[in-house]
């Protein structure tokens, strides 16, 4: 952890203007901004952790909990909203039993909402593991999740089978 953080911090001079970029670097490397990382950034830039926290919480991009194995972002831009985007987010919340911004207890799934990804002509859209899924419907949500869930179960089974063989 400390090493990873140093790798991010090293290229940046002690200048306040790099704060956003450093935070972006931390998030890219570690997936989220932990308390430890936050304090590390503050001490690198010689500003208070409260100042860093204030900036980090201002911007939607920064997360303070890790990503799930599968990360889902539901778009709620104007076009997606007009085409039923809220029903899509509702469906994910219902199926995964978490709210937007949350993560499942097994860390398998995390769910976020976004203002607009600029893909309005394919509304409503969701981004799952960086792949855009176009023209979603509540029914398609189940299909997509089942597809990914099956894969997960299959991986699990294979893992178990693998363990069985090695024993």
């Amino acid at each position: 952890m400390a090493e990873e953080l140093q790798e991010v911090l090293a290229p940046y001079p002690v200048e306040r203007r790099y704060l956003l970029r450093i935070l972006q670097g931390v998030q890219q490397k570690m997936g989220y901004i932990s308390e430890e990382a936050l304090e590390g950034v503050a001490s690198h830039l010689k500003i208070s952790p409260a100042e860093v926290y204030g900036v980090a919480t201002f911007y939607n991009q920064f997360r303070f909990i890790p990503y799930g194995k599968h990360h889902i972002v539901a778009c709620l831009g104007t076009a997606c909203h007009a085409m039923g985007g809220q029903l899509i987010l509702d469906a994910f919340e219902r199926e995964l039993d978490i709210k937007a911004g949350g993560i499942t207890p097994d860390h398998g799934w995390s769910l976020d909402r976004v203002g607009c990804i600029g893909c309005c002509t394919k509304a409503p859209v969701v981004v799952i593991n960086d792949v855009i899924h176009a023209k979603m419907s509540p029914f398609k949500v189940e299909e997509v999740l089942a597809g990914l869930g099956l894969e997960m179960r299959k991986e699990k089974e294979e893992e178990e089978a693998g363990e069985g063989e090695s024993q």
Partner: protein
Amino acid sequence: MKGNLNDLQKQAQEKWEELEESSFTIRIGTPTCGRAAGSLDTLQAFQERIKKEGVEAHIIEVGCMGLCFAEPLVIIHNPDSGLPPILYGFITHEKVLRLVEGFILGDDPCLELALGTVEFKEDGTPYIPEMPRFEIEERLVLRNCGYIDPLDIGQYLARGGYLTLQKALKMTPEGIIREVEQARLRGRGGAGFDTARKWKACYQMERGPKYLICNADEGDPGAFMDRVVLESDPHSVIEGMVIAAHALGASQGFIYTRAEYPLVIERLKIALSQAREIGVIGEDILGSGVNFDIELVEGAGAFACGEETAMIASIEGRRGMPRPRPPHPTEYGLNGEPTVVDNVKTFALVTRILQQGGEWFSQIGSPNSTGTAVFALAGRVEQIGLVEVPMGTTLKEVIFEVGGGITNGRTFKAVQIGGPAGGCLPESALDLPVDYDSLKEVGAIMGSGGMVVLDENNCMVETARFFVDFLARECCGKCTMGRLGVKQMLLILEDFVKGEGTEEDLDMLEGLAHDVREGCLCNLGGSAANPVLTTLRYFRDEYEAHVTGKRCPALVCKELITYYILPEKCEKGCDHCVLTCPTEAIATDEKTRKKKILQDKCVKCGTCIDVCPPEYDAVIKVSPPDRVKELEGEAGG
């Protein structure tokens, strides 16, 4: 690679001509929206097929032509066939085989898949004569979009790129500002401020260094014009920036774009490094002695950063909160130095103005709003996509002629224009010419160009709630009216969509909206009143239905509707709804096999309506919710 631009130009042109004359050129649009439609699979299918068949063909990834409804888009050109380039629409990977066997191996141009042929105007701008929308459109910003490879600076050069810069570098700063003044160019970021006036103010400052910022923080939901321009033709923006930098005496530039646009970032990085390589940015640009470099800054998902003073704060590594103006950034901007912030499209237009002259530009559009406007047309309209029309074109022309009208033969209800802080305009406003001043008169704003069409299935109260919810979330929290006023508007609207509002709330909402407009520190906050005031002004009957009738006429607001299966339409043997209902809220009558919704289990997700076969069309929504009891009574009796 640095050298004489004219030599590079000549080489690029020769290469381009070779390409245009070579036997097969396949252009595939792979912008973000194309990718969502599967264009990367199409690309791969072409690559594999071409390799397998051993034919010689150039496959080029291009940007977006604006015809997003028909993605994935492919343009195939075979000069030997005697045909002009042909544009094909909806080319998902399964159709690739047909195109390869038909047109590339055989001599059948597969016209059943074609949208039209690609012809070129005098200035080289491609258009599709078969599509009536091109009679209305005039593409100044989108000239190269969808036809050139954005990752190859050579293709931009071959179409005259950076020649305008070369010309401008020989002009005086005053000369450049004069051209822009003569063009009467107004900033394309939304407010429509006089660009030349802004530039003059900065030019006259005798302090430095001066900074130039390209505002590509397209945070408006429902807008994607800047994304498309930067993904499809980044050099047109870079060229405009360097011209502006020379006019202002700026030494450092920034492009501030959204982290939500990964492809924009990727393509801009490549474009900037190519521009640096041929010496059109960096030190001593094209031997003129002008120094100017551009740094890419990624935003972090804050809508407020689209406001210029907030953007400056963000580049400085602080919270993106606006500050009161004056002093304007031209006086006191980034690091306290004179700074100009302009939109992506403004820079693209600057290139065209310097190329063709301010006089030429001022003849396009309407007298007070010259030039063209780029709109992102989305929502419930047939031909969604990007549109560029002369200012002054009517909303009707944009939506019905360019956009092809409303989907599924439904009825137009409203057009939401100008982003979340814009306004919703009704049918009676359709004859309005789109320009800065006309839109302001009716309570909307030009904004940066988002245009979302709503039909009878959209609830205007819910739509207003949506925008206010967005603005309340994105409010930076600095001023009281922004922080609390917008929040209070949201609470009232939330009551309305639940059927809990009162007549007094309606008056309070209207009063509050006026206060928010007057009392906010920045334009973003102040214009949060627009969605409320325009919907109240044009769709008051819908508000009243929610408040007094406790019903939602558009059948959208969840708390005010119930789902119902019409027994006379329900086909006995079909179990589509039962099998797909996520909450097992549909019961089957043992005797008749007809279906019935168990209201206490129903979460109103709409899946049953989606899956009910269209020949039965048995699921309906009713409002107010109690209406379902009457229906059940009638059916039972």
